[in-house]
């Protein structure tokens, strides 16, 4: 089965997910994965869907855009490049990198550059910047997959050095510690 991925952006309001799901149902598409996020008042949703025989991603895009544009929502649609499973990822350990400290422009760029340089993949990022100097007001939480081949000590050392230059308090911890503490 061919697949397509749709991203939907716009000011949040009740009924966005219902509208998208209704159009997909009418087009005989099968929703396989959905992720939605709210950043302040903005909605962002990603839908990965299976396409019925005879429907292209372009046709689906036109159908859905016609319904979402009047609601002030933007949609981007793209065919999934491979219908098969992705190749097996390298063996990884999940870690969580957290920073707290004074706000300034470029924090995400600076920290994510170190993460990328070590070949570590970010699987989830949450960041809250209220601005100002209070450490609790400006927080970045990166969930990352660290390949087994990465030297953990040098990765942590480089992160700490970068955090220090940005006056951030940074910690790197295996994800299991959070699950052990908070989940049964």
């Amino acid at each position, binding site marked *: 089965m061919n697949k397509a991925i749709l991203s939907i952006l716009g000011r949040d309001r009740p009924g966005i997910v219902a509208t998208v799901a209704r159009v997909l149902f009418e087009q005989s598409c099968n929703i396989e994965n959905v992720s939605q996020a709210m950043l302040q008042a903005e909605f962002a949703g990603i839908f990965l869907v299976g396409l019925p025989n005879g429907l292209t991603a372009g046709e689906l895009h036109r159908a859905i855009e016609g319904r979402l544009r009047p609601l002030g929502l933007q949609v981007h649609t793209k065919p999934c490049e491979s219908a098969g499973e992705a190749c097996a990822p390298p063996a990884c350990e999940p870690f*969580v990198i*957290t920073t*707290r400290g004074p706000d300034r422009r470029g924090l995400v760029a600076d920290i994510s550059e170190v993460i990328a340089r070590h070949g570590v993949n970010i699987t*989830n990022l*949450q960041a*809250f910047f209220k601005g100002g100097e209070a450490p609790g007001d400006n*927080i970045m*939480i990166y*969930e990352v997959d660290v390949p087994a081949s990465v030297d*953990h*000590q040098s990765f*942590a050392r480089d992160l700490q050095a970068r955090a220090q230059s940005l006056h951030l*308090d940074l*910690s*790197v*911890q*295996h*994800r*299991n*510690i*959070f*699950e*052990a*503490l*908070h989940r049964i």
Partner: protein
Amino acid sequence: MLTGNEIISTLEMLKNENLDVRTVTLGINLLDCAGADLNEVRRRVAERVMGLAGRLVPVCDRVGRKYGIPVVNKRIAVSPIAVVGAALSPAEMVELARTLDAAAREVNVDFIGGFSALVEKGMARGDRALIEAIPEALATTERVCASVNAASTRAGINMDALLQLGRTIKRAAELTAAHDGYACTKLCVFANIPEDMPFMAGAYLGIGEADAVINVGVSGPGVVKKAVDRALAARPDLDLGSLSELIKKTAYKVTRVGELIGREVAESLGIPFGVVDLSLAPTPNVGDSVGEIFQSLGLLAIGVPGTTAALALLNDAVKKGGAFASSRVGGMSGAFIPVSEDLNISEAARAGHLCIEKLEAITSVCSVGLDMVAIPGETSAETLTAIMADELAIGVVNNKTTATRLIPVPGKAAGDQAYFGGLMGHATIIPVNNAAGDNPFIRRGGFIPAPIHSLKN
């Protein structure tokens, strides 16, 4: 996906509440190192300890870094040396203690426990030699800890052994008089000693244990205190039942951390995981005190009326939360109230809120007993024996562990300060009733029989 709150509250516990793993203790079985040739025993013991414990500290540090949770102390507990060295003389026992000390230094652990004897039902040759060796062994080594089990619910109290231990403690204090009797801080006398306790000075590896085992002591009391403070700041009218629930949940978290780290250390070393000890063990640092929890709960200080009830609540909640969190709970698993090791308890003693009789009373609802209690140097061996007998009787009759770690500080009197340094802290010497007086009851010796409820079968 983790929630932001899960991550941020974890970081708070780490940075502001002293969340850690208090100790990872490697138990090492030395029973097959026994022999009559001192040099051969020393060689085997050193090889065994250094062979098994060589990677303990680096592995604990690596696992601690991985989770961002420090493993504060790395320690070793060995089989009772009175058994391993049963054929040795007291002087040879001292030499064996030095071997243990050197091995502990070599593998960089801060304490090695197990210079121990089990004499609740009588003393064998090795037990007598070990107890005779204790003063010099503790005075001339840095990291060796000693313990003697002199009573149990099944056997009663060995008063002859306690009399000898009274003299042993006096001698150990005299040999380290220049350091306020420091050697006594490394000697515990027990009733119902646990075979798998990771905390010092009482840790040893029981006779029924495997070749090697990793036991873990959970984080200290700071996390519990902060949780109580936070909850009361949000809701000042919280009742005691709600506070008990809160402590229970906090103990759950602390125990999960201990077990996670302990199991990973054990797996990395290829050694079986043993138990998590739930005891809240304080240090002489602000914010890491059992005494502060009493104040957070609303008492003026530990020792005032209400203290025993508050400790009963605390200890019970910690056990319930911990027992749910871990599949292997063991060791002491009760709150510790070591006077000199806990800044707040030490201050309560100085201010006169806490006396030795109240300490004895509150051990009826926790464990350890009279722990790190500095008493006047004039206290006689007989009175020391009598204090120990009182404390052990609580354990024997109530079917629980109790112990004493008493320091009769040479040349100092009640109200003076004793300084032990480091983890052992400092304390105001508290008065002892009839310290130097006569005690014919104690001199009678023999055994105090086991209580009737020991006949369970």
